[in-house]
């Protein structure tokens, strides 16, 4: 690894990535605590260990670009522009949440910033991102559709159909597979015999790229190229980010023996925040004090978010059936 930042990555960009990764990490840790104390009403799948991916990809997106995400979507939501306040309030089931309490952890929506939704069903995001790309192309707009999804989703038929459709229409779409090697407790190496997701892009004659998903700068660079190509009419790309989640599949679940504890430890040593901090220091681009200051600023924001959410009102039960139809 060179000690300089990669070509084209400025210090400011790298620090912004670090700040976003801190925001995600600290939000997740705050939410995990809130789960334990009963403030989160439903499920909660954290993104701890995978922060580099959402941060690296979304750094290239504007509010006009459309992101479609999964059950493990807190990181994507934050990186796309949902505030920690809106995220906490949503998981706490409050009116001030990004989905006004209708959604919870798995149904985060903020179309105003291009967060077109996270989904409790695995895989539809792949298709929807292709559709956003189609829509942008049809209307001559330079935006892109982006899908985040797991290794588990890549075994779903939607992966095959969605990538093929995006490829034949040359829709400006980015498919980001977050290969954390497990779908709940089922190992990816059990669920498919070819665990290199990026190679499956060949079936659709689509570029398939593999990056270290714990290396924010690598993700940033690969996503940047793919998004630029898409905006320029060059069609879709599949990026596989090899990574690992270091917490349980969902809060409240324990390590039941489905994966080696050594693996968790080994991946923790490759923590994406530590890796980026190390790169910044090695390149003499940021001092530890500077990085600590960012972490501290984020700490206050996240603390405020939890407090805000706790103090927010619950939605009025009388509104429970609003918005089923457009004109209702």
């Amino acid at each position, binding site marked *: 690894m060179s000690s300089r930042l990669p070509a084209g990555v400025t210090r400011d960009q790298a620090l912004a990535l670090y700040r976003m990764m801190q925001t995600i990490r600290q939000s997740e840790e705050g939410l995990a605590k809130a789960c334990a104390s009963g403030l989160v009403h439903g499920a909660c799948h954290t993104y701890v260990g995978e922060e580099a991916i959402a941060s690296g990809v979304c750094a290239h997106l504007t509010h006009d670009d459309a992101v479609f995400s999964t059950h493990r979507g807190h990181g994507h939501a934050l990186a796309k522009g949902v505030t920690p306040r809106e995220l906490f309030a949503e998981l706490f089931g409050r009116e001030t949440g990004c989905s006004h309490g209708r959604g919870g952890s798995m149904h985060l929506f903020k179309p105003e910033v291009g967060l077109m939704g996270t989904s409790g069903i695995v895989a*539809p995001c792949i298709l929807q991102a*292709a*559709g*956003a790309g189609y*829509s942008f192309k*049809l209307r001559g707009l330079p935006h892109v559709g982006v899908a985040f999804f797991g290794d588990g989703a890549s075994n779903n038929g939607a992966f095959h*159909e*969605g990538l093929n459709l995006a490829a034949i229409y040359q829709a400006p779409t980015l498919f980001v597979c977050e290969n954390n090697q497990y779908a709940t407790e089922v190992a990816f190496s059990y669920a498919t015999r070819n665990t290199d997701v990026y190679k499956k892009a060949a079936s659709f004659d689509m570029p398939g790229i593999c990056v270290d998903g714990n290396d924010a700068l690598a993700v940033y660079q690969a996503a940047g190229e793919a998004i630029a190509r898409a905006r320029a009419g060059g069609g879709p790309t599949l990026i596989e980010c090899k990574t690992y989640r270091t917490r349980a599949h969902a809060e409240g679940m324990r390590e039941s023996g489905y994966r080696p504890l050594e693996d968790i430890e080994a991946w923790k040593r490759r923590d994406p925040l530590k890796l980026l901090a190390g790169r910044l220091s090695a390149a003499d681009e940021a001092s530890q004090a500077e990085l600590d200051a960012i972490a501290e600023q984020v700490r206050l924001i996240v603390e405020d978010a939890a407090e805000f959410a706790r103090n927010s009102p619950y939605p009025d039960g009388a509104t429970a059936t*609003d918005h089923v*139809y457009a004109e209702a």
Partner: protein
Amino acid sequence: MREITYSVAAREALSERMAVDPTIFVVGEGIGRRGGNFATTLGLYERYGQMRLADTPISERGFVGMCCGAAMTGARPVVDFMFVDFILDAFGEIFNQVAKMQYMSSGRLKMPLLMRGCIGIGGSAATHHSGSYYAQFANIPGLRVVVPSTPYDAKGLMNTALTCDDPVLYLEHKNLLATKGPVPEPEESFSVPFGKARVSREGKDVTVVALALMHRKTLEAAEALAAEGISAEVIDPRTISPLDTDTVLESVRKTGRLLIVDESFQPMGVGAEVAARVADQGFDDLDAPIRRLNGAFTPTPYSPTLEAAIVPNPTTIAQAIRDLVKE
């Protein structure tokens, strides 16, 4: 008014809306240059081009999900399934994504997505090309389900569907496509609202609710019964979700008797819902049991002798009406 076919009426509406709304595009297998298996898009490819009439791979789930994403981002997609049987692989996308998107986003996203396909038993199409799934789809909150039975309604409901922000499933009975009826001139814009049934024949002895092809067959039966002195009022709900029962209740207030005729399956079908509502809100008006006449609860057989045995026809409908009037 000029007379055109059901099929032309629906296509005309689509073409007119495409001319004024550049965000409309159609996807499906063979809807491009070929013009659609049922001529639903004939001539449109030449007029609107490849991006707006996009042939697809055989990926029903995929292109429904794709159109869901397109509808969320400013386009108005039309999914043409040809035979609506092929919709089933997309059931998850429709139920959990398309129909819930407005709700999940607290109304910030709209879902202007039209899905269409042909329904109905006939012509030895056999069991994979003859389904009518409106009951199942009408049980999905967030979705509109429309089943026109005349050229006028075909165009009028298509116009509503293509200007409405809800997802709509638009179902066309194969055996109605070539039937003709009066439709306003192209320059006269009109539409038929969702949730408003049509009394297509007035009568005083019995109310018969019937949709799609069965509506036509029921009118035939009613005509024949008039000679016997039985006066049947015939109602076409036109849309199943929303379902207008006020019109039915008003009719039953007059006739005291209700029969629902539906080619599709009886259990938890449209007839069940109409009957349940009338047994609640119109209970005091009823002078006799509510009756339903349905296609048999079976996959569709191929052979003409078997096929004929499983769907109501004017003779069996007339008999059901006679029986009910005697009650």
